[in-house]
């Protein structure tokens, strides 16, 4: 997610007072709502009704991501460069809440009358390791992961538009090479629930997440003498103003994202994902200019080939991405900060890093079966081994990306 806090990184009392006085941008709010209404009406007329609910869930995710500034990318970097662990601990909390909510629903789906749903599982092997490492590297240069790229684009960040364009290009390239990567050593998905049972799988995951959170807090305490209580901080501008205008406590963001991921599972039949749509959009563009995608093995597989032939309005991932973009735009309008991150002129270094980061993320997301959301968040929330391996390898790639950032003109 975004490395630059879209609601401004300043959290001093003075800045909070200015934020509290900031007016709602009526034009941006009205435009975002009109966009949601128009797209919703099109979906209602032309697509199954569940896509309409998924558009709204996507919009809710966009609002939550923007208002909580829930940053995976910045959280990882802050732990490495500043030894601040708030972001990482918030992510462990998010994964813990999602584990408690989603693993039992998947484990007892039949008893709950949800027999058609399935978790996010994926193979474990060379493709996953290489892909997630590349993704972690790219997210530090690109300035955000899949959701971070989308919600900052929705909030009007021009640099992230470049990242998104490169992300799409990298994703298409990834679809070209994924079959070769799948032929390298690897094995079928490992579902911890199948091996251990629901309760032991939940207990094991919570224990690992708690141990990681404790370790991250220990690193911060050793370097700063105390742990910053960012997760549980009280809203600075009153509850109602904070809810609508932003600067949510991280706890609110974690709860909202986990609950909306559960809602996605129940409505769509599988948990939240983002990056399949990027490859699809790129493939549709190539197809529109005359490239025969039927020659690419990836686009002959059942799901991708059907998605390529069909409308974006029925593609679940695309519909949710559209909702996320418009939800983030709505939130930025409520906060009076639309396009604020683009005030400074772009120089060559940040543009080059956006391109390199976007390409690495796009290619990595296809090889690694998703991004921080589809592979890590939804993978771990489904008790899939691949989610944990994705997390470890992407963090390793992130370390390399963080080292490279200053050479590309980016601050750490």
């Amino acid at each position, binding site marked *: 997610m975004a490395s630059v806090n879209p609601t401004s990184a300043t959290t001093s009392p003075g800045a909070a007072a200015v934020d509290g006085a900031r*007016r709602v*941008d009526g*034009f941006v709010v009205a*435009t975002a709502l009109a966009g949601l209404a128009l*797209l919703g009406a099109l979906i209602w007329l032309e697509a199954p009704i569940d896509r309409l609910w998924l558009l709204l869930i996507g919009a809710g995710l966009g609002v939550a991501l923007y208002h909580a500034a829930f940053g995976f990318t910045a959280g990882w970097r802050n732990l490495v460069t500043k030894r601040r662990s708030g972001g990482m601990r918030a992510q462990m909390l998010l994964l813990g809440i999602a584990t408690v909510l989603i693993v039992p629903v998947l484990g007892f789906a039949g008893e709950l009358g949800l027999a058609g749903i399935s978790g996010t*599982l994926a193979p474990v092997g060379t493709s996953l390791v290489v892909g997630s490492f590349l993704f972690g590297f790219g997210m530090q240069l690109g300035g955000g992961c899949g959701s971070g790229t989308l919600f900052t684009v929705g909030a009007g960040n021009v640099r992230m538009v470049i990242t998104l364009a490169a992300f799409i290009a990298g994703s298409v390239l990834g679809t070209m090479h994924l079959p070769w990567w799948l032929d390298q050593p690897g094995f079928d998905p490992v579902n911890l629930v199948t091996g251990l049972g629901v309760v032991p799988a939940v207990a094991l995951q919570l224990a690992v997440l708690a141990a990681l959170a404790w370790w991250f807090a220990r690193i911060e305490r050793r370097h700063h003498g105390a742990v910053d209580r960012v997760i549980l901080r009280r809203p600075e501008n009153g509850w109602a103003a904070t809810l609508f205008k932003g600067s949510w406590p991280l706890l609110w963001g974690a709860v909202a994202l986990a609950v909306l991921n559960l809602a996605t599972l129940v409505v769509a039949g599988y948990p939240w994902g983002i990056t*399949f749509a990027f490859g699809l959009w790129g493939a*549709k563009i190539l197809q529109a200019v005359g490239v025969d995608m039927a020659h690419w093995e*990836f686009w002959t597989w059942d799901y991708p080939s059907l998605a390529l032939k069909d409308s974006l*309005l029925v593609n679940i991932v695309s519909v949710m991405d559209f909702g996320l973009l418009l939800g983030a735009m709505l939130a930025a309008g409520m906060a009076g900060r639309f396009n604020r991150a683009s005030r400074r002129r772009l120089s060559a270094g940040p543009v080059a890093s956006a391109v390199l980061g976007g390409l690495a993320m796009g290619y990595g997301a296809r090889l690694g079966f998703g991004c921080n959301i589809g592979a890590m968040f939804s993978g771990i929330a489904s008790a899939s081994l691949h989610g944990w391996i994705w997390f470890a390898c992407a963090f390793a790639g992130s370390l390399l990306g963080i080292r490279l950032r200053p050479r590309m003109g980016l601050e750490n």
Partner: protein
Amino acid sequence: MTQRRDYSRWRVLAVLFGLLVLILADHINSATFALNSGQGGVETSYSQLDESACAPCGAPCPSRREGDG
């Protein structure tokens, strides 16, 4: 308190309108639009859970690829 706007309203509307046109153009050329227009024998992607797939993107399982090979 007056606030300086950080964007051009026309540019925002033009970008969103362009995206809407692209989505509509894609939809008009899609299987779902053909089905909604009364064409028979069209396969849509309404049910997107491919039970034989091993990943959300529809990738097959490594064990199946070894078998194919």
